[in-house]
């Protein structure tokens, strides 16, 4: 989604801790809105865009529980509530985030609730974002006359590292009727960013934020999106102005990339990881033309067969098959000769003629 013109209207921050720590020391929940100056607002806006705009790793999620008192209900109600309601709902959500932080390498940190307006794919929209920000450490530089002092800071928030934030983004896309009260999931586009989702699969650690805390599930379109993306990559490689031998190698790279242990796929990252620099932007453009502008959950159901083995068919009707994990390392296309033969090298000796 193309997110521009982010303007921040209300912000509040609370402390969040691991569930096991709640009993020891209840997290600090603030009663007051945070006053941010223009540069602070700009920074928050930039982090939001970086994590949810096109080229980012955020994924669409589907709201699983939108009932009264659900996280969706509490979060979306903040859009129209007065400051008192805004503060109350944010405290409630911060509390349930702490409760949800049970598994994996979770640190305590802050929950920042941001309300604002933006232009979403060209349409003026309102949004609420919940940012779980881990504290970073750093040094604060102060220039005093001729001398510079560096002071240790243990609680720096929203630095450059995306590993330190998780975001839930509720973008209002419409309103079903004039009915006041609870909002419908259809009125919103809900996006989640969590760096754990890129790498470690659908494990408990990655799931706690969008699932346990937000009561959402990964988009049901994942399998279809994965297949569509696979087809786009295939046809892009097919059209690349490279030799057939390189094309076979890129196809092998494609298969191995899909088979890697990653929970999401994203066009720009794919391009940077697999394609040569000269072709990366052409690939990003092709994906954009096909409507793929951001990350999505990888779901291999519809492409499993294609990933199992890699094959090459020759004009003489000879087809060479190999399990894809073997193909890359055991088959080398060394050249095409003018008399219509292709030279291959295959690792291993002839073992049998089944």
């Amino acid at each position, binding site marked *: 989604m193309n997110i521009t013109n982010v303007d921040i209207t209300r912000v509040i921050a609370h402390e969040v801790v691991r569930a096991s720590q709640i009993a020891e020391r209840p997290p600090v929940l603030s009663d007051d809105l945070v006053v941010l100056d223009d540069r602070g607002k700009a920074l928050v806006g930039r982090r939001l*865009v970086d994590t949810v705009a096109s*080229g*980012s790793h955020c994924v669409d999620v589907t709201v699983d529980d939108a009932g009264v008192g659900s996280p969706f209900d509490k979060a979306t109600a903040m859009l129209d509530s007065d400051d008192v309601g805004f503060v109350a709902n944010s405290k409630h959500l911060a509390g349930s985030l702490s409760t949800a932080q049970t598994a994996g390498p979770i640190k305590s940190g802050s929950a920042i609730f941001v309300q604002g307006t933006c232009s979403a794919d060209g349409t003026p929209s309102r949004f609420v974002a919940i940012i779980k920000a881990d504290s970073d450490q750093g040094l604060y530089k102060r220039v005093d006359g001729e001398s510079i002092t560096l002071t240790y800071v243990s609680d720096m928030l929203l630095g450059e590292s995306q590993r330190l934030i998780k975001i839930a983004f509720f973008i209002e896309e419409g309103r079903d009727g004039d009915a006041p009260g609870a909002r419908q999931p259809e009125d919103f586009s809900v996006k989640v960013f969590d760096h754990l989702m890129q790498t470690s699969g659908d494990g408990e650690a990655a799931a706690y934020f969008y699932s346990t805390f937000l009561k959402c599930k990964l988009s049901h379109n994942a399998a279809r999106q994965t297949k569509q993306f696979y087809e786009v990559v295939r046809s892009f490689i097919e059209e690349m102005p490279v030799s057939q031998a390189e094309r076979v190698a890129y196809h092998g790279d494609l298969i191995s990339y899909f088979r890697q242990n990653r929970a999401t796929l994203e066009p720009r990252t794919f391009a940077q990881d697999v394609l040569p620099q000269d072709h990366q*932007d052409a690939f990003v453009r092709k994906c954009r033309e096909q409507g793929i502008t951001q990350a999505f959950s990888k779901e291999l159901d519809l492409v499993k067969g294609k990933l199992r083995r890699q094959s090459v068919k020759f004009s003489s009707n000879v087809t060479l098959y190999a399990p894809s994990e073997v193909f890359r390392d055991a088959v080398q296309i060394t050249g095409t000769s003018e008399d219509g033969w292709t030279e291959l090298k295959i690792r291993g000796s002839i073992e049998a003629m089944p």
Partner: protein
Amino acid sequence: MNEAELQSAFEARRPILDALGRWVMDSIIEALEAQLGSKSAVSKFLQIPPKPRVKETDSFLEKALVRKRKTDPLSEITDQVGIRFVVLLLEDIDRIGKIVESGPWTAQKDRDFQQERLEKADYFAYQSDHFVIRTRSEVTHEGILIPAGLPCEIQIRTILQHAYAEMAHNSSYKPPVKLPEEDQKHINRSLAKGSALIETTDDVFGDIKKRLRDYNESVTALLVRSSEIYRTITGEPANPNTALGEIIAEEYRGMLKGVTPDMLNTWADERPWLKESLLKKRASSVFYRDSVVILLGLLVTENETAVPKRWPVDSDYLEDFYSTLGISTNGLF
């Protein structure tokens, strides 16, 4: 008129012919200056400083009485005074030709080498444009009264055509020594070869110039359109020639290939939110007051991974610009 009378009449006329020559030359140089912008541009444009030349009396008499017998030589001989303009490129000849044709005199084209090329398609020899102009009415120049109808010849040629003409003049037209016929044939053949080569080279020079100009014009057109779009969107003045614009156009030359001004309009039209963004940002950032942001916006949208790799100034600007465009900087900076 006998020879003595003709001689004294011509000699009496010499200062007037000289004044006519200078009047014509000054008028043409003045017009060139207006077109090219400065005196120094004109002196760069003209490969050899022009100088009016009044015909030698003997040469006039020989032409009048021997070579091409005339009934009224003082009126009929058109090159009693002449000026030669030597330029670099064929297209420069047309520039001067147009000035001559629209000058404060009557002009007639005596030789048109482009036309001669077609008429004698398999013949290679002297090539040059010749004009004969005549004063329409009396003119006073530098205190000298020039009568109406007095002719002046103007030759315009490229520096290569000039080199050929000088060579041909010395070796064929007026050779210092008379060669045996067989040798002269060889020389004539070589001159034709030289002429053909020079015509080819003049065309090649023209191609080089055209390629450079096409590129420059296309880049200029993009910067100009960028500033027009910026002005329309923001309602603020915009300058197409900024240092930043120049740096960006230079750095992303390769990417500008294939970008047309109309693509900038389409790009901006698809982004109705741009107005609010630009108005807000330009208040506090000089970067957003530069209309090249429109062109840069298109470049970034089309080449989001490649643009940061070549970014020529502080990357904070570009990172902020990505956010403004709604493109994540994740993994790019």
